[in-house]
């Protein structure tokens, strides 16, 4: 799964966020999704998608060594995470999410659930699909 974006296609529906929270937290709560949808309205009128591209910079800065890579995916070990927020600052994609009820930041684990439900192809899997 190589998550890629085609932001011009995003309709802002946030289905990606709902399924992300359901799948990864067992909660219906888009504020816990690892993908952000940011509208730019009234001008110029489009949506921006902020999501992790597994670059690993977060792991490099984490003082608690709580972020580890397996198969190209970086995961946060919630036990080890101290909630210091260094990784949030370091993320060049501004993709880390904070939620008041969670100590650890929320980060994409490339599960592909959002890809499955993005009808618009705005989030897609570059391994299996050409840009729409």
């Amino acid at each position, binding site marked *: 799964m190589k998550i890629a974006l085609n932001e011009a296609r995003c*309709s*802002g529906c946030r289905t990606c966020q709902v399924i992300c929270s*359901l799948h990864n937290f067992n909660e*219906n709560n888009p504020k816990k999704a690892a993908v952000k949808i940011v509208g730019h309205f009234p001008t*110029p*009128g*489009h949506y921006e998608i902020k999501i992790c591209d597994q670059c690993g910079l977060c792991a490099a800065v984490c003082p608690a060594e709580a972020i580890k890579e397996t198969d190209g995916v970086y995961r946060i070990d919630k036990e080890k995470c101290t909630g210091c927020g260094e990784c949030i600052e370091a993320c060049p994609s501004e993709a880390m999410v904070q*939620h008041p009820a969670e100590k650890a930041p929320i980060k994409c684990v490339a599960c592909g659930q959002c890809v499955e439900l993005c*009808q618009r192809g705005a989030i897609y899997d570059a391994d299996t699909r050409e840009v729409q």
Partner: protein
Amino acid sequence: MYGYGGNILRINLTTGEMNIQPLSQDMAREWIGQRGFIAKILWDELKPGIDPLGPANKLVMSTGPLAGTLVPAGGKVSFGAKSPATGIYGESCMGGHIAAEMKYAGYDVIILEGASSKPCYIYIKDDQVEIRDASHLWGKGAIQTEKALKDELGEEFQICTIGPAGEKLVKYACISHDFGRQAGRTGMGTVMGSKKVKAIAICGHNSIPLADLEATVVKGKEMLKGCFAKENLDEWQNYGTAGVPVWANNIGAFPTKNFQSSYLEGNENLDGKIMREKMVVNDKGCFGCPSPCGKYCYVKPYNVYTEGPEYETTALIGGNCVFTDIEQIGYLNYLCDELGLDTISAGNVIGFAMECFEKGILTREQVGMELKFGDLESFKYLVEKIAAREGIGNILAEGVKYAAEQFGGDSIKFAIQVKGLEWSGYESRSAPSNMLAYMTCDLGAHHNRAWSVTHDIAVGRKVLEGKARKVIELQHIRPFFDLIGCCRLQWVEIGFELEHYPEVLRYVTGFDYSQDDLMKISEKVWNLTRAFAWREIEDFGRKYDYPPARFYEETVTTGPNAGDVLSKEELDFLLDDYYKLRGWDLNGLPTREKLEQMGLGFVVRQLESYGRKIS
């Protein structure tokens, strides 16, 4: 409570008091949500005869159990109050993201009571609720206000606002949200303005509890994918309702020249394909929508951004005021949106004024300029006068019915409204079922409850028999979506099946409704809002259900249905049939038997206590 935000938030703007009460199981099960909650609360809490723009009126904002979940298009919220436009039950529905946000903040219902003495906005972050000063926003456009508050509070807030028209209490002011979604009808923005509330800003961080999370995920995915697989999905998401004007014209249903005709010369220029090529910059959807119909536009010649024009706007500003340039319509749409005016009523009012001028009922002296159909300056001039309530605008701001009463002549015959609410965008002299649908809509002449032009075409446009039955069926199904917090357009436009909803409601809420139960609840709400009108108006009944005389005395002037008219006898046939099938008396009033059968015994007792004679 499963499927719900779980609470009712009540804010008294006069005293500044607030309280949060849990939503009861019984309320949820018996009224489902959104329009069900609104109707019940307004019935219980409003005293008949109150001034709709006084502090005794309440603005109730509510969404339903499927909003904010994985169920397709759960992004709808409704606003209700006693309508300043009609004096009866008022309500308007809106998409966007604020319905979901309300529930994440923990609320199914927000009730605004009383009135603030100075401009304010409501700030809601989970259980932190504040009435904040809005003097810096007062006077600003509806869209500008949303932008200013987003900048101030943060992108994660969902915000609804009113424009200057709402502040000035124009009777058809709308509530605006998500940079182009509106609760347009029955003056809900007017009620908000009367309370001096410029905006409601909401941000929530909580989960919606689900009765069966796993089953909801499986079913939600199945429903979404079912929508994705629909054959006409692409047509719908490419053009949205902008695909409709040409079709409506070809079948002779496009309101033209203040409904003189149902056919507009030059309508081919309003085609969705032309609009897409010239103006669309983004396909924009509401929360959870698998089929985004919002066409976000940049209108180059006028350098403005606007969402739409939607079909209804193109019909009422375009056809009704005779504009055939989609960019001009886009620009006028932008003006209405910023000013915070319902484009349906505004297009009706301005088309009406143009006709009055043409007929000499209005003069240059009265208006301040010469009005002409199809003249951009005329529209601009009037819309600004209306929003500011200046000069002629002060009369037009009251709606076509009141304006006709002031202007005199025979103008009441072509004031296109029912119960004081301006007619939605389908000329219906050649569509008896649709005519009946708009005549009997509980809100006035609005398409939200039933729309049946395609039924007329399918079974015969002159046929009257059987039409009432179809209208009633649709009046239960269509507004059913306004009970659950979902968009109806997946069902209407891409053919998504109704059968899914009882099942998914069970997974989300744990309540086990059959399809039939759901339709019964929809019917119960229908009877309640009809009773609301009767409680307000002593002589309410059949005479309030007629369309303007234009539709039964004048024939359609041009196009495929030129010469068509529905006689008063034909309208009476439709009404008789309709009332009978509804279990109402011949005057169109709910009977004791019907109300009791619907579980509305409390309505019978109240109506009687106000001296209404129930048969």
